[in-house]
């Protein structure tokens, strides 16, 4: 038989002794078994690969089990406990609260080889794991004896003539209560949270006594069952985002949403992403935190413009101005991250010397550090958090405006998309070879607008619409690569100009810079050809999109 477990939240006003006494009044006898302590650190990737697969990876540092000194406690009065101090570090991989693997390492080292590392290597490399949550637990175990034994199958069997002795040979029920006192902490903050008490019942066998106990706890003691997930609940308590900062389901659009609700949800989603990625950016845990934060900033800034008519001109302008400020600060670091990523591949392409690589990497790393310090200060500033608060208030503001407003957003989506398509209509008449680099830059912004507009409503879209929207993403990606290469060329020129000014330019360095600039040129040519090939298809894609919008077949009606 599998273990039956159920967790209950214990309100602050209730103590372990009160719960045990309450059970005692109902005829249960309780015996304290022992006290344990443990410290867990939960890990995941920046984008929550493990969390998305319902996996939990944690490192556990546990004191050895402690035993009650003399005599077991009875009916809510625990005897004095002592602890021993031998510690070990055990890695545990858990799915749906069931332990998949366990592995010990020395001194809290990440498991590099072995079952846990091998298992998660299919999902992510151990080196990309980040700590998300520290959870400290003190657990008191109490064994429970029911007031009267449960009827067993002997009473089911009859003998000829009628009566048999009823349920008298039941085995003793094996039930345990675990009172767990949890405190949580972010790995990057100083203080621990207030305690959270959870009680878990478990029974080794499937028996009715555990059902009776659950009814008693729920109805007589007012303890409600909870779905206790240490990582989820812990992050909620310390007000930190889940791994990958997945959007809460309340932001999912439905066909019944009015335009105000849709705007509130759209803004709310991106603000959530901004909030969820801020701490990771401040501590520079992974460059993708910054990337996600920057993307969210851009999207919400665009959303404000798109929905200005509903939000109000002044509010839109003020928020966009502040978003622009933080977007610039983010951009000054992000651009360098992009260069460094691309250069690390391109160095090999041009056969760059170690010395050159060192100079370029050193230059950009130094610049990044400087820009990052400014960014950190900006993200910790009152100005940034006032912006986040103002954006959150926008969500509430739009929901309030919703009252009495019944036009579903699905009726207005075609209008929003047509507005963007109208802006692009001037380009449609242009032939591919007439587009200059400046034109490509402007087109990139238009495609970004089209992509963002369609993606804002993507929760509602049917399969065909999703396919069309995916087609537009390729345009933006292609033009994005073109743009990145152009900016990289410019920054390399500045780098070499600076070196020449300082008279630190060497032949090796100039050849290296020249090689890299040539690579950027090749990239631009490739992307230009690719884009021009796709450009001829664009009018057909627009036609397809308009047909879906006109016929109303662009969204799922349920």
């Amino acid at each position, binding site marked *: 038989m599998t273990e039956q477990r159920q967790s209950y939240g214990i309100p602050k006003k209730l103590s372990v002794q009160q719960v045990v006494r309450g059970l005692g009044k*109902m005829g249960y006898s309780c015996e304290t078994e022992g006290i344990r302590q443990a410290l867990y650190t939960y890990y995941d990737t920046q984008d929550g690969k493990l969390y998305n697969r319902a996996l939990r990876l944690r490192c556990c540092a546990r004191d050895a089990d402690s035993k009650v000194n003399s005599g077991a406690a009875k009916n809510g009065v625990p005897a004095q406990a002592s602890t021993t101090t031998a510690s070990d570090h055990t890695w545990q991989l858990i799915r749906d609260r069931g332990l998949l693997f366990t592995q010990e390492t020395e001194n809290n080292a990440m498991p590099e080889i072995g079952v846990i590392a091998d298992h998660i290597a299919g999902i992510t490399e151990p080196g990309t794991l980040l700590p998300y949550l520290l959870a400290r637990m003190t657990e008191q175990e109490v064994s429970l004896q029911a007031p009267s034994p449960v009827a067993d199958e002997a009473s089911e*069997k009859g003998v000829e003539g009628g*009566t048999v*002795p009823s349920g008298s040979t039941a085995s003793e029920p094996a039930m345990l209560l675990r009172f767990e006192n949890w405190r949580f902490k972010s790995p990057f903050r100083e203080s621990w949270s207030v305690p959270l008490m959870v009680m878990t019942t478990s029974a080794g066998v499937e028996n009715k006594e555990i059902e009776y106990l659950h*009814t008693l706890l729920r109805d007589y003691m007012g303890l409600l069952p909870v779905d206790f997930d240490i990582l989820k609940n812990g992050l909620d308590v310390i007000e930190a985002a889940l791994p990958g900062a997945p959007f809460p389901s309340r932001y999912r659009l439905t066909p019944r949403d009015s335009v105000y609700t849709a705007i509130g949800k759209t803004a709310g989603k991106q603000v959530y992403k901004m909030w969820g990625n801020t701490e990771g950016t401040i501590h520079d845990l992974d460059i993708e935190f910054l990337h996600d934060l920057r993307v969210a900033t851009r999207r919400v800034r665009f959303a404000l413009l798109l929905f200005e008519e509903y939000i109000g001109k002044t509010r839109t302008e003020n928020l966009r101005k502040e978003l622009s400020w933080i977007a610039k600060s983010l951009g000054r670091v992000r651009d360098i991250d992009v260069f460094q990523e691309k250069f690390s591949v391109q160095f090999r392409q041009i056969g760059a010397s170690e010395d050159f690589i060192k100079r370029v990497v050193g230059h950009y790393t130094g610049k990044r550090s400087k820009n990052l310090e400014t960014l950190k200060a900006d993200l910790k500033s009152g100005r940034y958090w006032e912006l986040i608060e103002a954006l959150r208030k926008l969500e509430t503001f739009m929901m309030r405006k919703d009252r009495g407003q019944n036009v579903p957003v699905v009726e207005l989506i075609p209008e929003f998309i047509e507005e963007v398509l109208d802006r692009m209509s001037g380009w449609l008449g242009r032939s591919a070879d007439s587009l200059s680099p400046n034109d490509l830059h402007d087109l990139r912004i238009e495609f970004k607008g089209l992509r963002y507009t369609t993606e804002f409503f993507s929760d509602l879209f049917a399969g065909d619409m999703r396919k069309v929207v995916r087609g537009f993403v390729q345009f933006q990606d292609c033009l994005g690569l073109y743009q990145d290469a152009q900016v990289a060329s410019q920054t390399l020129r500045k780098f070499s100009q600076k070196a020449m000014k300082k008279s630190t330019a060497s032949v090796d360095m100039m050849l290296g810079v020249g090689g890299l600039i040539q690579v950027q040129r090749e990239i631009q040519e490739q992307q230009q050809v690719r884009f021009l090939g796709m450009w001829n298809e664009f009018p057909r894609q627009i036609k397809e999109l308009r047909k879906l919008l006109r016929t109303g077949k662009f969204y799922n009606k349920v």
Partner: protein
Amino acid sequence: MQMKLAVISDIHANFTALCAALRSAEKKGAGRFVCAGDLIGRGPHPVEVIRLLKERDFPAVLGNMESRLLHLRGKTKKARTRFKAHFDWTSQQLTDAEWDYLASLPEELVLNIRGHEVLVVHGSPVSVKDAIYPSITLQGLGSKLGNRRPNILICGHTHIPFSKKVAGMLVVNAGAAGTSIDGDPRASYGIINFEKGAFPRAAIVRFEYDYDSVMNDIKSRKVP
């Protein structure tokens, strides 16, 4: 100084409603409790209800449900099929401790509370299946009581709550704490207020409870 007696009847194995009734009564200052029968039958929590009443030592009387159920004690599976399915299910939940408790319930209780004689029955003093409705007259009451004249008559069974004075006698039907049938979906119990120097007064209290939890338990425990 006043004392309040809470009268709970026809729980029908609805532990959720019973706990809600107790909380409500305790909030209203009830210091004593009495149960007017039909503790079990049809509901999903017979064991929990019996244990609570036993542990809290509430005086209780036998109802028609208990009376019928006791016939199943020790019966074979074949014999039990002659009874309604919910009786069979209930009988399979009980251990000796619960059976013994039910078997110990009297058909009537006589309590002396603050000098007042209180007669507690399930249906009526005639039988557990007899009924006392709000329309009861002095004559009707007389025929059920015979020569007896308690100050207070407590009954249940009908699931129709009322309290009325009939020729100086207070008659209280607490309705049903487990299942309501009078059109008001809320369950009910009675509160009798004993004040020094005054005749006791009764009130019917209606209360809500977590109906969905009970329905879920009925489904999960496969109560017929």
